[in-house]
Each structure stands twice: as C-alpha cells, then as structure tokens.
C-alpha cells in the first residue's frame, strides 16, 4: 500500500503541505491539518509529522497524488509503496553525496541532467554503506 514517507532533511519549512491540507475540507486555510510541520525551539529544523493514509478528500491537483506531496517543492514528501520508497530514499542518499545541490532538493525534482545519476542504485552501497 502506498504511504507518505518523509525526508526530514529536505524539508525547508514552507508549510505548503500543511496549509493546503488544512483547506481541503471546507476551503478555509489554517494551521489545523493532517500533516503538521513542527519546529524545535532553538534549533533550525523543520519536521513534517503525518497522520494520514494519503487519501485526500479532494486532492488539489485532481489526480491521485496526495495534495501535500503534490505541492511540496523540495521532494521532502514521497508517496510510494515501501520498496519504491526505499529506492527513492537511497537515490537521494546517494545523490547528496555526489552533488551538494541535493542537500536542498531531491534529485527527482531537478529538471536538468546532472552527473552520475544513480537511479539503478549501482554503487549505492559504496556511497551509503551496506544496507
């Protein structure tokens, strides 16, 4: 079953996910949503906490992608079955070791070619250690 997985380090704190989610029921924007981005006082972190099965009442982009995942600009949210989610996660782990751009955006969000895309996970163990 597909679920929403989170890459915390990619979250920039924009709250697009939370804000759109809050509006799905009645067109009213607030902080109250099934996904909440929390902060820890004194620390520069943004942490999305999801309490949802990913099946929006009314996804804003009209397809089957959950709203929060569709609006997330960095790729911090993943909507996949577990094996694909693992693959994506490893793709990011590998990409960020290869190119510093992927500290701030997921490789599947970057539209230009970049060197050594590791989509087939070759050499992945070298880069991220043994699974």
């Amino acid at each position: 079953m597909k679920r929403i997985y989170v890459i915390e380090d990619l979250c920039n704190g924009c709250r697009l996910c939370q804000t759109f989610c809050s509006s799905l029921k009645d067109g009213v924007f607030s902080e109250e949503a099934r996904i909440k981005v929390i902060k820890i006082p004194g620390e520069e972190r943004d942490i999305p906490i999801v309490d949802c099965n990913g099946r929006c009442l009314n996804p804003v982009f009209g397809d089957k992608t959950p709203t929060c995942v569709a609006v997330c600009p960095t790729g911090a949210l993943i909507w996949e079955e577990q094996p694909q989610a693992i693959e994506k996660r490893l793709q990011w782990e590998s990409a960020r070791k290869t190119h510093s751009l992927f500290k701030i955006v997921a490789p599947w969000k970057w539209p230009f070619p970049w060197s050594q895309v590791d989509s087939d996970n070759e050499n992945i163990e070298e880069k991220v250690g043994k699974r």
Partner: protein
Amino acid sequence: MSARENSVQKILRVDLSSRNTYTEVLPKEWTAKYLGSRGINARLLFNEVPAGTDPFGTDNILYLGTGPMDGLPTGNGRMSVACKGPRGSVAEGSFGGFFGPELRRAGFDYIAIRGKAEKPVYLFIHDGEAEIRDASHLWDLTTDKTDAALRRELADANVQLRYIGPAAENLVHSSVIMGNINNSGGRAGCGEVMGSKKLKAIAVRGTGRIRVADYPGFIEAYQMFRKRLDLATSRDPWTPVWSTYGAPVLARLFTDIGNLMTRNAQEMRWDEEKATRIGSEVYLDKYVTKGKACFGCPWPACQKLYQIPSGKYQGFKGGNYWAGQPVVFGSLIDNDDLDLILVLSGLCNQYGLDVFHVGYTIAWAMECYEKGILTREDTDGLELTFGCQDKDGLIDLVRKIAYKEGFGELLAKGCSEASKIIGHDSERFCLSVKGQELEGIAERNLYMVALGIAVSEVGPDHTRWYPPYPCNPNLMTKEELSSLGIDLDLRLAFQGRNPEEKGKLLRWFTISRAVIESLPGCVFLVRDTLGFDKRPWWQLFQSATGTALEYSEFLRAGERLMNLDRAFHVREGFGRKDDRVPIRMATEDVPFFNYPRITDDVFNHMLDEYYQENGWDLKTSIPSQEKLLELGLDDVAKSLKDISMESER
C-alpha cells in the same frame, strides 16, 4: 475560532506614548482600490503623516501591512513596512517569512504605531488581543539573542517575531527591521524609526482561520501559477537556477560583461578566479547546512542557512547569502574570502544593519584611504585598503558602526552624509541616491536599472521594478502582450545601453510589481511569462477576496500606488532634481569595456519618457491633476494642487 472572511481588512492602532491600542476596520472599497499591504500602507501614510512631520517625532507612524493574500499559500508571507523615512521621503520595504500569516491568523492585517515609549517596550499580539510589554531586558541585545530571549519568554515555538538590533536603537543610518534572524526589511530607515519609538520587537501568535471566497477558483488559479514556477514545468531556464543556487551565481557571470562593481565601481570587472571563489557553487558545497523558504513558497530553497566549516571563523552561523553580499562584501571591497563575506553579512544581521549601507560606505572609505583623504589617524589605526588585509579590523569596524564608536561613528551616517563631512570631493565616489546607498546592480550597462534607481522614491531598491535583467522576450507574442495592455517593443526595451523604451519598460515593471507587493506576493516569482502576464495573480486575488475587478483595474491599483508614492515624495519637496544617478555613473566611463558614462542627454531622454508616460510634470515630476483624478485620487489631487516647485530642468 470562526473563519474570518477575506474581504475585510483590519488595522491595529497603537499609541506608544499613551499606551493605548484599538482596532479599526478599513473601508471595504480599499481592497479593490489599493489591494492591500504596500498599497494600503501608502494610502495610510499619505493620509496620516503630513508634510514636514519629524521622522523621529511622535507623529511619525510605522505601518506593518499584510494583505488579503497573506496566510494563503500564495502570499509567501510577504509584508510591507512603511513610514516617513529619516531622509525625508517614503521609507518602505518588504520582507518575507512567516510573520504576516501569523498576524492575519491573529485577526489583524495592519499595525500602525505612533508615539514613543518612555522605556523600551515590545508589542505582543495574540488572537485579537494586543499588549504593550516592558522590553528593558531586551534592549541592546543583538537580533539573534533577542529572538532567543523572546521565544524563551513566550514559550511558544510558533510565535513570530520582528525586532531591531543595536544599530536601529542607536539610530544608525538605514538600519533595518529583522525577523527569523536572517530576514530583513525596510532598509530605507524603518528600523531607525522603530528604534526612535523605543519599540524593540513585535511578537505575534494567531490560531485563526481564513476563508477564501471561491475555493475552486482559487485552486484553478493556483495550478496556473504553479505551472509557471515549478522546476519541471517552467519554461524559463532561470527558474531552477534561481530557486536553488540563487543570485550569487551572478558574480561570476557579471565580471565578464562589465556588470560587477569592483573596488567601489572604479572598475566593473573582477578577477574571474576571485569571483568563482565566492560564488553559489562554493557556498552550496562548503557552507550550506539547510535549505529554507518563506511561507508557501513554490521554490525549493532561495534561502539557505550556513555555517563556516573550518578556519578562524569556524562555527559562525547565518543565513541568506544572496545577490548583494558577493558585491558589497566581495568585489566592491576586493575581498575573495567567502568566510569573511559571511561573517560580515551575518554580523550585519545580528546588529540589524543594512548590508548595502555598510558595504558601500566601507568601500567609499577605502577609496578615500587609497586617495589619502582618510588616513590611519582617522580610521583608529585600521589599514583600510581594498583587498582587506586586516580582516579582524574590518569585522570590528562593523561593530563600531552599529554602536557609533570611534571611526564607526562617521560611517554610521552613510556615505552621503559622511562625504559631506569629509569633503575633498569625496562625494564624487559615494555611490548613493537620495542619501541611500546602491544595491550592487550595474547601471552604465543597464539603462533601465539606472533609471529605476534614479526615480525610486525610497532610494535605490530594485525590488520595485524587478527583474533588472532582461527576461526571455520570446515567450509571448507582440499580440499577446498587447492584449494584456503592454505596448512595448521588448527587444528594444531590453537593449542594455539604448535609452529608447526604458521609461515605458520601467513604468510597466513599477506598476506590475506594485500590484504583486500589494496582494502581497513575492516579486522574485516572476519567471516564465509571469513577468508580463499577471492574470494568475489577478484570478487568485479575485477568488480569494470575492472582489470582481477587470484585469485593467487590477493593474490600475499598481498605478495608483505608484502615484501615491510620488505624491508623498513631492509633497515633501522632492522632485526631478532628486531623480539622478550617482555622480560616478554620470561622469566616468567604464574602463576596459568602454561603456560610456550616462550622459545628461541619455538620462534626460529616459526621464522625460518615464514622466511623460506616467502623466507627471516634466519639470518637477508632480503628478498631473488629470492623472490623479483619472485614478480616483481626488483628495490627493486636491492636496497637490497648490504645490509649487521651481522648474528643475
């Protein structure tokens, strides 16, 4: 809490002298006429702060304005801050972050602060309530410490803050208001005015809800908007670059084409290796620890947090290395040490100093030193050379500027005032307009920039007509443009050193950016066709507020704002004589590239075209009675009717 309707805009009035606060509802028709944020701030300022008001007196009012799109995912948390500035005209600037949405959820759209507190205070606003609280314990704290202290005190991780640092408390020229430690706004002196009121900070927390009038319409417009800005779908190669690497990529590109101010703009070309050492790629590789964004931004990380990884300044933390710092703390002072740039700009944020004031004024002082106008006796022994041999001395100089200490006291006045004191013709190389320092963008190679900097009522501020560099003119046909009311020959208009069409182009950019800043929204989000096609914002605005407006009327709100700014300006005695470029740009050619100086003929040609298109008097720049009446600004027309100004041509 019940959901607030989005068409009603409310203002919280605060008088710090009498410690009174109360709430007012703004006239409903203002939403269609001025939209919100910067537009409504300008309207309030013109109405409530008459000519001749002392900028540091009790009658000056500091406005913080959100607007009907704030708190919605397209407002980007933008907010306008405005007052009468210390240099006599409008001071207005905008910042992003999260304060605006929080204020709206707390039930207010604007805050208007008049009077002066006897002792330092801060304002705490929470869900419809406002309290003036003692801030003696916060006074003199740097912005990072103020942020931490208030968060501890209010014990709520979601509270949003705006505060000033020691620079604004000490009324240092051009000090800014800060928030989120690294977001600044209001460089034309809004921080100074806040300091003069002894208002250290504003804290806000709101848990309210905002209802849009037409949700399906809003979502449809959002999809249109988003398509033009998403990395995958935007038809603009700058979208991915800008939204990740950011503007410091320009340093390296600009040195090749004569756009990089070097050694106080004595040259416009810097060593390419130096430019590479301080560029975005190095920054991202070695310094960036995390991407950041404002509320609801569709881009991954135009902001980033950094930490210096090694060396003498190891562990120094800050954020937001953007287009200005590589110039003002890089090429302008001939420094290719990125550690030093990040320490200097991080310290400016901590003291609440404006990086442009500090950078340009130090560069001016370095040129004085080079020419023997200033010596070590003047600089407290500091070897103030281009190339920055004495890094620690420079770092300490920033602190001295914030506290007006020793040599810092002179530089704290800004280069315009300082050059008047020092004399020796040093104002010839002070790079400022209307007493306000430049922002790092070349003028002699980009005539629209020269014109835009010259005419801005708040002093140099490229966000009023962003972007300074040509957008892709091929995305829309001439017919499409003209159906949107834009009759411009874009190819001609985008030719850097050709004065033709610059007035018209600047007029379009100024009006359309005024619209975005009044919704509010972020002016950086104008990639793809959004630079010229404002219909996505128009539909977002209509669906969010339920205000039906013709597209042309939507844009007219921007023209109204442009005229309100000019009206305030001329009412204070400013006019054509003040719309100029820095003396260096008008008297010196660009070496190596052979770009000529901006001659009087060229400049006057552009200025005439701009005034003419605007319906402003060619001799004085006073908006014509016809124009003001056409815009429905009858009261403004009346108050400008008897203004006389000597012919200035």
